């Protein structure tokens, strides 16, 4: 990250952050920032805003794929566990019924499918979001506490190739924010 810093920039700066009072403003600002060529930026909101995903041109979430993998592993694993223990490891003849009595194994197969899909999904979501991450530079600004309440934020990182302390600040100020400030690293 630090390699992209130009010498004129303060290495202690994470970037510039703008605060917005309205959801529509932050969406418009995010869109404008993408159009202005900024790529290392993120928006923060107190509730999910679908338009932000599109405005920031974020790639599709990988969570569905992870859930699918978890479900397939869970289903196969659950059935194989039952097959192996009932047919190979501990076969028990009950009234001459087949060892591989698969209809009786469906319930546990179903449960293990759901279980692993859910666990993979939750762990996957947390890891894809790079959580747990107790420290993040944006927390250094005390106004940022409003990101979990009623305010919207757009942060352009100093690591962005088009970032310029002056020009970027002027650009953010032109987007109708209620405040703009620099966040410490």
């Amino acid at each position, binding site marked *: 990250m630090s390699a992209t810093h130009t010498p004129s920039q303060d290495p202690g700066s994470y970037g510039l952050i703008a605060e917005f009072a309205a959801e529509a403003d932050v969406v418009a600002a995010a869109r404008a920032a993408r159009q202005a060529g900024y790529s290392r930026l993120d928006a*923060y909101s107190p509730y999910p805003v679908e338009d932000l995903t599109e405005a920031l041109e974020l790639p599709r979430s990988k969570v569905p794929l992870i859930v699918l993998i978890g479900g397939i592993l869970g289903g196969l694993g659950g059935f194989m566990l039952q097959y192996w223990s009932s047919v190979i490891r501990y076969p028990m003849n009950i009234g001459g019924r087949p060892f591989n009595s698969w209809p009786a194994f469906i319930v546990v197969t179903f449960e293990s499918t759901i279980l692993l899909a859910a666990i993979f*999904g939750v762990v996957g979501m947390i890891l894809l979001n790079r959580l747990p991450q107790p420290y993040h530079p944006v927390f250094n600004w005390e106004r940022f506490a409003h990101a979990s309440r009623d305010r919207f934020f757009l942060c352009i990182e100093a690591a962005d190739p088009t970032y310029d302390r002056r020009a970027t600040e002027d650009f953010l100020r032109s987007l109708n924010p209620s405040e703009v400030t620099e966040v410490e690293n």
Partner: protein
Amino acid sequence: MTTLDPPASRPVKPQHPPVVASGYTPATVTDQVNKVVFGSTPKWWLVGFGISFAVVMMFLFAVTYLFAKGVGIWGLNIPVAWGFAIVNFVWWIGIGHAGTLISAILLLFRQEWRTSINRFAEAMTLFAVACAGMFPVFHLGRPWLFYWLLPYPNTMTLWPQFRSPLIWDVFAVSTYATVSLLFWYVGLIPDLATLRDRVKNVWARRAAGLFALGWRGSARHWQNYETLYLLLAGLATPLVLSVHTVVSFDFAISILPGWHTTVFPPYFVAGAIYSGFAMVLTLVLPLRSLFGLKDLITERHLQAMSKVMLATGLIVAYGYVIELFIAWYSGNEFEMFMVHNRMHGPYQFQYAMLWLCNIFVPQVLWLRKVRSSPVLLWIVAMFINVGMWLERYVIVVISLSRDFLPSSWDYYSGTIWDWAIFVGTLGFFVSLIFLFVRFVPMISGFEMRHLVAHGSKETKS
């Protein structure tokens, strides 16, 4: 254009009451949701928690005695080897169903009214499943060996019997508990971040910060989060329908008259949702007035929950009628005796009370006046709570006490220890509810903010 105006004399069709009272912004709704957590401890909370915690102490005493003496202190004997333990297990598991139904199925159906009650109902699910899970373990006789039910390599080289519904139950209930916990926790993450950002107490902030994982509401976070939340709802939907189905297999796979019926799975699931909503109402009605949350949990929620109860209650009624019909239609002597024994045998009082509590009394929910009156609704909910417990009592005990061979018949009733442990789990459940509403936001803050910011779809139209 006067023809388009409705005539003044004709009464206007009543609209739905709003999902949230008007005049809220994301900031004020956040404060309202967190008011309970940030406020000082009310006196009634201390009293209520004190009483329920005393019941937990009684529960611990009863369980200690049970572990020391064994299940002989219960009223169990052959032929009734499944008594209170299984009745309570099925009752508690059923109560849990409302939480997942509200959080998952109603999310997929885009029911806005679920937003103010899903968090609470999910917590209730977790606590109810915790109570339920204890009973089969106690019933094992040697509860410290409960892990023998799990498939793991062991020195005895034994493996579970996967063809047994009792093993299916282990998997169904443990999966249900785990997925419900994950769903609840994932829903809590953004709200814990709100607590972390607002709370003054340094230890409370650290605790909230630890569990909030550093959530900062980034657009990237929300994108993964929303995707996962929807997928979890999709996974939990078949799961919630499967859990009580599997519980009903414990009975339906057997050959006992009164248990061996194909109507059991759907009728158990409907009964579970029925009792779950009754329990949600039992708890939410007093809490919303004690905490002043009537703006967020409005008359609309009471109406909607009453209608769900009415609908599932009718499915349960259908189940009861079909049981009678099939017993007659089968022409099977033992099936017909089972019904006769329910109506005229030693448990006829419980059977009559079952019909009264579960089928007759709840019909008052057809009246709008009852659906919008918290007091009447609470009384109906209590009838359903009792009725659903009686339903499981009737199913478990009556069929076992008089099976095919009259020489083995016996009469079963719970002992004081049965009651102590059952009442003890009620105390445990209520204690957990008290702790939950005090320390964790009982209404989902970020979903309420979204609802308030975007306005209800209904009020827009």
